[in-house]
């Protein structure tokens, strides 16, 4: 499955639009990571625990979007956008959405 954030896939013609597909996840880290983040906050800089959290969350969200597109029988997802929002302390919602399309044969 090809995923892009432009409106088409270079070198392919889009035959059919299958509509919106999306994937989202709300993830949190265990308390230990939060305590680690607290101590990292003494000196500032990158908070590795939270970076990891968001990278994993985004992978999960993309995986769910991909699964939805596959169930529609799509060849690619184009024009993908992403949003992140902080839901509550130590948890974030990651959402990705795009348009599932089918190629010309």
């Amino acid at each position, binding site marked *: 499955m*090809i995923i892009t*954030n432009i409106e088409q896939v270079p070198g392919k013609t889009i035959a059919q639009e299958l509509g919106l597909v999306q994937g989202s996840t709300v993830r949190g880290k265990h308390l230990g990571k939060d305590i680690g*983040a607290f101590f990292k*906050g003494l000196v500032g800089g990158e908070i590795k625990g939270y970076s990891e959290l*968001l990278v994993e969350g985004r992978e999960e969200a993309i995986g769910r979007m991909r699964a939805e597109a596959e169930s529609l029988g799509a060849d690619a997802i184009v024009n993908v956008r*992403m949003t*992140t929002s902080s839901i509550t*302390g*130590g948890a974030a919602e990651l959402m990705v959405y795009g348009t599932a399309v089918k190629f010309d044969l």
Partner: protein
Amino acid sequence: MKKPEEVVREFEQGMARTPEWFQDWFGGDTLWDMLLSNGLQVGGIGLAGWLLASWFERRHLRSLSAREAPLQHIRINTSKHHASCEPEACTLLIGSVVVAHDYFRTLIIAIRRLIGGNISPYERLVQRGRREALIRLKEEADLCGVDKIINIRFGTTAISGRFLHAIEMVAYGTGIRTQR
């Protein structure tokens, strides 16, 4: 509602029950005495954190410049149009990082915000974070073997942890291969 004198008396009674080393270090005969003597220690910890943070910042900036140099061949633009390329190499790329300030600087910023205007510590932090996110994006592009990233988008989100507030920078775009 308790009277302030009662709060002070209860606090002093509580302090009297703590071990001796604790009283030696943080102690004082009265609450006011204690606050005065501890001002120096708390300030010292804050200052040490600030100095360490500045050192970490300089180190991070050095590592950023070192990692930017070998990734120069990857071109980036914001346009959706593209030259001819191979469709199978076309892929979505993401680079992201979460950064935060040290607590001492957060305090300085809180004071600085009373006046308004540019908050330079935050400006430096977001710029540093965005450079890091961009480098991670380029590193991923390098791993996937693509040499151009088109339609790049940036996002910034405030993330609240259980104990600290941080900022997430994300950069994403479509990687394409323009030559073999």
